[in-house]
């Protein structure tokens, strides 16, 4: 991935590039929803509409060689880490051309060459592995960082606590990106955590914790940049407490009976990170339209590519179980 800034500041054109990428993710996921409703894709699809600035801000701050582990809400992370829309869409269609060769689908997106150690259907699944990979970077003196994405709900499972403790104890170059969207499925965060400030969980392990506005891509980028530098510089892991919002259901088709209409409408109206950036950049309607039609074309192309892909054969399921 091309480095966007040289001197720690972001130019307007860098930010326009962020805008483009966020919009690509948004349009990609909207298309996924549309194709699901058309009966072309199976269910169990979690989109990250509203959380695009987290994926883009963090991944744009990475250096060559850094790795990530994603979650069940993985399309944004995967695109931001460099997997092409074609390969991702083909995966959702279960085709051999997909980034996981049609075996994984939405919750099992891997792109090892590009440093994506995978999405995870099991919540909390990525954190221990990232801690271990970061330990390896430390043992070998490699200037690399491991980044784990996870949600607020994930901070309640054992692997989260074991990983944070180990990472801090061993001072590994890892960054833990907590995307706090205030929901774990239908359970609001006030009902699954007895604290309001999620970063206290990292502080309890003695870990450096930083709070970030997840709807502001520039803020996410800068915080991630500093966190990565800290970790890369051998100063230990960092916890990024990213405040963000899920502007849609937990999964595509979720009727969200548990969520008040007013809250949802208000959140949608005020917390769209793409809208925030558009305003900040004072982009004209024409400018937006130009980028929009460009990314929509890419997404259409991805659907085309995916539909023309190769179906795996049943016997392929027997491969790659052992060396």
């Amino acid at each position, binding site marked *: 991935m091309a480095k966007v800034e040289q001197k720690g500041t972001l130019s307007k054109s860098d930010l326009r590039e962020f805008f483009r990428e966020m919009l690509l993710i948004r349009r990609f996921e909207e298309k996924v929803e549309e194709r699901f409703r058309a009966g072309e894709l199976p269910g169990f699809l979690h989109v990250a509409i509203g959380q695009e600035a987290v994926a883009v801000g963090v991944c744009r701050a990475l250096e060559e060689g850094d790795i990530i582990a994603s979650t069940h809400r993985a399309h944004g992370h995967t695109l931001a880490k460099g997997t092409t829309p074609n390969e991702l869409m083909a995966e959702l269609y279960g085709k051999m051309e997909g980034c996981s060769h049609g075996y994984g689908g939405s919750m099992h997106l891997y792109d090892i060459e590009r440093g994506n150690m995978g999405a995870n259907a099991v919540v909390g699944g990525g954190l221990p592995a990232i801690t271990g990979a970061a330990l390896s970077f430390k043992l070998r003196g490699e200037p690399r960082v491991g980044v784990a994405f996870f949600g607020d709900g994930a901070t309640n499972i054992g692997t989260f606590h074991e990983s944070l403790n180990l990472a801090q104890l061993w001072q590994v170059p890892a960054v833990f990106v907590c995307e706090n969207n205030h929901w774990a*499925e239908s359970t609001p965060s006030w009902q699954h955590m007895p604290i309001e400030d999620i970063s206290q969980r990292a502080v309890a392990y003695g870990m450096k914790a930083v709070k970030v506005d997840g709807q502001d891509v520039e803020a996410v980028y800068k915080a991630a940049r500093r966190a990565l530098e800290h970790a890369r510089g051998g100063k230990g892991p960092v916890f990024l407490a990213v405040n963000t919002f899920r502007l849609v259901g937990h999964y595509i088709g979720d009727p969200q009976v548990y969520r008040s209409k007013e809250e949802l409408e208000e959140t949608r109206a005020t917390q769209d990170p793409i809208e925030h950036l558009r305003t900040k950049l004072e982009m004209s309607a024409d400018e937006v339209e130009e980028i929009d039609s460009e990314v929509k074309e890419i997404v259409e192309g991805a659907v085309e590519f995916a539909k023309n892909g190769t179906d795996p054969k049943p016997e392929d399921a027997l491969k790659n*179980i052992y060396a």
Partner: protein
Amino acid sequence: MSCEGHLAERSIVEAINDCLHVELERDSSVMVLGEDVGRSGGVFRATAGLRDRFGPDRCFDTPLAEAGILGTAVGLCMAGWRPVCEMQYDAFSYPCLDQLITHVGRYRWRTGGKMEFPIVVRMPYGGGVRAPELHDDSPETYYVHTPGVKVAIPSTPADAKGILAAAIRDPDPVVVLEPKLHYRTSKGDVPDGEHVVPLGKARLAREGEDLTLVAYGSMVAVCEAAADALDDVSVDVLDIRSLKPLDEEALLVSAAKTGRVVIVQEAPRTCGFAAELAAILAEKAILDLRGPVLRVTGYDVPYPYWQIEDAYMPSAKRVIAAARRLLDF
């Protein structure tokens, strides 16, 4: 079954929901806990209405922490409750396996029989729903292999209700796996009010003379379809429904009658429950058998993605092929 007025047509998931309503009403020590079971009524709506009816102390949402759910259920049991824990999906029960193996299955034994362990763990299991990996597992073997834990897998709405009721009333830990593929599509008459199907009793889903098809859960329907297609053959379809305790008697009686047994299991092949059944037949029915005990199973691979899952799942076609092989033996 009894008089018609006391039956209502229900799907499997409705029967489970009905059972929970009846059992929570009947016994104030029964409680339900799990992820999203309260306010939203569960991802499959198995626990719908419980929180409103019985209050947030009897049906409550937990954080995302399966080991914590089952681990605290251990303590709740010690203090006199009958917790019914929901695991959202089959594979999300793996984080609680540690609790199940190291504690749940051992307390009665450890305490010299002084402690009751009426815990129920229920979860949707199995494939065929076009879900990705880890939403389609058949993990029964892990549970059956754990001493001190009972395991049941119903296949009909009436049994889904009756077996869950038996599990809740049982003094020991019971894991109940529910065939999610048929949660809504399988409908049948279910007795209203209290309905208990004792653990340890198989169900003869169909009676025949020439061949026995043995299965549980969602594979029972596959066996019935195979039996339909084998129209020149008279088939016993034995629904095991309680894996532990096991109704060995029913298995041996059917084997003695037909002399030919095909066992069907969705889980991966090696060390699956079908192997246990085959071993029992080898030990106790060898002279009754007219051919080898055959297994039709899943493969020793992680459950594959939807594009090829139909090839993984034991089908009526595969069962018929095994049946023909045995009949021609």
